[in-house]
């Protein structure tokens, strides 16, 4: 599976309601390192209801400069959420479907670019 095919794909809930598009994929490096770096497993997908493009991740951090870019980009990505891998029911060619009762997590990262 190539990640580029997944980015921008429309996301639907179990009832077929469109929630947005895949804006990003979040990985966590938490496996046992075989040699250099541990495996990076897919933690979940960031879904944005308005735009799947992301510019420097302003909508996921707390930066406020340079004015007015952060506010503008946050507004453009308002309503974004992170959905965990366990809540993804189907990844098809042109759509992603979530499980019934999925949980929408905050996509925010901390100042170091971490959760």
């Amino acid at each position, binding site marked *: 599976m190539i*990640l580029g095919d997944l980015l921008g794909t429309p996301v639907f809930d179990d009832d077929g309601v469109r929630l947005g598009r895949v804006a990003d994929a*979040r990985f966590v490096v938490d496996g046992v390192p075989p040699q250099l770096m541990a495996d990076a497993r897919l933690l979940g997908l960031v879904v944005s209801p308005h735009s799947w493009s992301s510019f420097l991740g302003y909508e996921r951090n707390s930066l406020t400069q340079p004015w007015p870019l952060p506010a503008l980009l946050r507004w453009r990505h308002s309503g974004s959420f992170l959905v965990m891998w366990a809540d993804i029911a189907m990844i098809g060619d042109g759509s992603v479907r979530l499980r019934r009762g999925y949980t929408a997590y905050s996509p925010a990262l901390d100042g170091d670019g971490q959760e």
Partner: protein
Amino acid sequence: MKTPRPLVPVPPVAGRTLDAQLHLLDRQVLDNDGVPVTTVDDLELSPPGSGPEIPEGTPAPVITALLTGPILGTRIFGGRPPSSRLIRIPWKDVADVGVVVRLGVSGQNLDADWVERWIRDKIIARIPGGSRDPR
């Protein structure tokens, strides 16, 4: 379009978090000597299952390789090159992800910069003085 509310904070995870668009894609790749190799154009993940449906309890895909290749045309006009045209740098060769992606192996043995090596050996080296080490 329905937006779910309210958003729940993500439970703490033990490892380091990497958002593909923010921390990996388009980053420069350096080999273990600090020599630029390529940039990360895409990522290859392990297949999540045998079909599009994902049964509950399916292990999450992991990154198997960084992909690079001739993507300029598809960046402009859309789509992506066929999978067979993309060059893979295995994730097990990645040593660190920061401002750049550092590899733990030498770039000389990777397919990713074969074009540069070919131009060096076949064209630059045949120019008078071209085979001399500039340093």
